[in-house]
């Protein structure tokens, strides 16, 4: 019998082995200018089960640029722990050479320069090639989609997710879980899910009225693969009605519900499951915490917080795999399951370098068919970035895309202060690159994109910032929602991430006058993506397009308006 200690050594050895031979290879290959499809996909097939994980695609059908964050702060027990490690620290942790393909894929430094060498990433026709290659090694590999799939582009918005459904169906997933899908509205989600040729899972998707499991979304599904009885349990994003407009899907309730997760794990184990996989949209820190509370999960495939990790994180006997976002990565996890338990694993985070991986022509055809009716609208050039200006979103406090969106809100909506939601999706634009209408939609598209204008007192504005900050920096991950801090324009502040809610945000300053925000004074606030029903205003993509068209060439002032302490 294998003891827990043996298991850990086995699996860590496997991880370490792959960490040096599979993952580290990219760097050496780059030095040799030998990055080829075969090398990227090279994998010594292991054990008897293969899992393929992709998550948080956000409707990115085509190759894009995607810069990873430079600021990703962990708090409480996760201070300094992955995925809260960025840049040079991240490269040092995983032994990645500066300037290598993996440095480009996983860290932010020199992004625009490296993008010139290594090109765009993602594209679901390339993803298909990777999946096909894994299926060639292991025909019964399970393909699992972590959700945030039917959201995030012009075509997705105008087809109400149908473009993504059609393309994903061509990839033949085995199961999926959910988050932004629900912002299509419950009628549309129900309509799609009823016709899905694969399992739509969520042990935490409940009927809001009766607080009972929702019939349309079973908690788990069994698969027989490689002679192993596998249970895949779905975990949808727990805080949908809070982080997104609950009025769009009032019939549903979510939550972490880890006691029900434990009950489901016990249930599938008692039915003979030899391997329990949780397909999760919890976010990484929540998954880590859940892995420590719920016993009996072998693998958590983690989504939501868009982290890409070259090695799984081990919590007890559970491995947690994080596979990035926007179609940029696919994870392959091979498992050795014997005598009813997981004995070891081999893992590879495969970056989808779009110029290296040959597109699957069949899937290219499906993608083109979705985009063809909108081709002219998508490709219209609205402006361009200056030669020293990159546009990106990720980072805990700001990104240049949101700086631009906030500028657009202030000037187009004549406001003192602008607020832009701290979402983590949206590709990047390189310096000197055309900005098309599609690019603008890629960072703004949603079913509640009205750009509102409202009045707030200084005191209320402080409450808003404190509330959002606690969703990010509460030391207990179960009280976090997985978004980044609300982005602000026209406002400066100081944040101490170690303080409790109500005490984090100080020194709020109205930038245009340099004066301190007066709690009793009323300010004109423009923003978008309100979760409140009945929000009125022009669509955010129209506001941003008008602003970019007026500017022509986009050049932004560096954003130093947020002072962060307590890191």
């Amino acid at each position: 019998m294998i003891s827990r200690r043996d298991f850990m050594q086995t699996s860590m050895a496997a991880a370490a082995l792959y960490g040096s031979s599979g993952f580290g290879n990219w760097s050496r290959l780059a030095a040799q200018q030998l990055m080829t499809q075969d090398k990227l996909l090279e994998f010594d097939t292991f054990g008897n089960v293969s899992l393929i994980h992709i998550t948080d695609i956000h409707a990115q059908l085509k190759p894009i640029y995607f810069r990873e964050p430079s600021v990703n702060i962990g708090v409480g027990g996760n201070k300094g722990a992955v995925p809260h490690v960025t840049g040079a620290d991240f490269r040092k942790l995983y032994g990645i050479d500066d300037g290598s393909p993996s440095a480009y894929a996983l860290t932010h430094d020199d992004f625009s320069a490296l993008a010139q060498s290594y090109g765009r990433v993602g594209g679901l026709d390339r993803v298909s090639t990777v999946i096909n290659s894994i299926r060639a090694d292991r025909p019964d590999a399970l393909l699992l989609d972590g959700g945030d799939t039917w959201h995030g582009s012009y075509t997705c918005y105008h087809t109400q997710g149908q473009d993504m459904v059609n393309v994903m169906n061509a990839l033949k997933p085995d199961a999926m879980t959910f988050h932004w899908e629900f912002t299509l509205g419950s009628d549309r989600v129900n309509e799609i899910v009823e016709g899905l040729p694969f399992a739509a899972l969520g042990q935490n998707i409940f009927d809001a009225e009766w607080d009972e499991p929702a019939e349309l979304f079973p908690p788990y599904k069994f698969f027989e693969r490689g002679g192993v009885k596998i249970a895949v349990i779905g975990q949808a994003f727990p805080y949908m009605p809070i982080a997104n407009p609950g009025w769009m899907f009032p019939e549903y309730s979510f939550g972490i519900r880890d006691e029900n997760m434990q009950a489901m794990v016990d249930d599938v184990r008692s039915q003979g499951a030899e391997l329990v996989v949780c397909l999760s949209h919890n976010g990484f820190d929540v998954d880590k915490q859940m892995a420590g509370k719920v016993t009996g999960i072998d693998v958590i495939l983690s989504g939501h917080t868009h982290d890409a990790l070259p090695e799984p994180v081990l919590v007890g006997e559970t491995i947690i795999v994080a596979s990035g976002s926007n179609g940029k990565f696919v994870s392959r996890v091979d498992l050795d399951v014997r005598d009813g338990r997981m004995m070891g694993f081999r893992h590879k985070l495969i970056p989808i370098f779009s110029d290296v991986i040959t597109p699957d022509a069949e899937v290219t055809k499906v993608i083109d068919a979705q985009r063809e009716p909108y081709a002219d609208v998508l490709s219209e050039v609205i402006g361009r970035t200056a030669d020293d200006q990159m546009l990106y979103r990720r980072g805990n406090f700001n990104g240049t895309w949101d700086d631009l969106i906030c500028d657009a809100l202030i000037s187009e909506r004549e406001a003192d202060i602008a607020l832009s939601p701290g979402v983590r999706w949206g590709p990047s634009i390189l310096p000197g690159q055309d900005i098309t209408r599609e690019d603008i939609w890629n960072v703004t598209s949603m079913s509640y994109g009205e750009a509102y204008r409202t009045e707030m007192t200084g005191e209320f504005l402080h409450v808003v910032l404190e509330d959002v900050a606690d969703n990010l920096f509460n030391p207990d991950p179960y009280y976090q929602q997985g978004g980044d801090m609300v982005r602000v324009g026209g406002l400066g502040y100081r944040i101490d991430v170690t303080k409790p809610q109500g005490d984090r945000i100080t020194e709020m300053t109205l930038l245009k006058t340099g004066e301190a925000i007066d709690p009793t004074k009323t300010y004109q606030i423009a923003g978008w993506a309100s979760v409140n029903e009945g929000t009125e205003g022009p669509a955010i993509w129209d506001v941003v397009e008008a602003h970019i068209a007026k500017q022509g060439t986009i050049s932004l002032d560096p954003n130093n308006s947020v002072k962060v302490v307590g890191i």
Partner: protein
Amino acid sequence: MELTRRNAIAMGAGALLIAGLPIRVSAAAEDAIAAFTGGAEVGAGDISLTAPEIAENGNTVPIEVSSDTAVEIMVLATGNPTPGVATFKFGKLAGSRAASTRIRLAGTQDVVAVAKLEDGSFVQASSTVKVTIGGCGG
């Protein structure tokens, strides 16, 4: 030392802290617990309270309490202007000693359940429920 109700509550809270359960209780909630327990010490044990970490709607928050050996369970929303929510009583023939209901919470606060067990002792569980204005998840 004379054992007052308030001291007894403080001791009970101390025991809970040792058990790793955070508890912040208002004076009104303290008084309600003291009235329920008659000043007896409150420990941790056979009581479970299930509540969401973050409320989807602060006006209707689903909670559930259960205990195999309780004869009464009192539920308090410690941060509400009136903390009392409900007291559930279970007879010997009760098939299951569990109750669920929905409660309104004025803001982020601890919900506390205190159970009187068959042996006359008292146990307590608490759970922090965050009530947030929401937005920005992504």
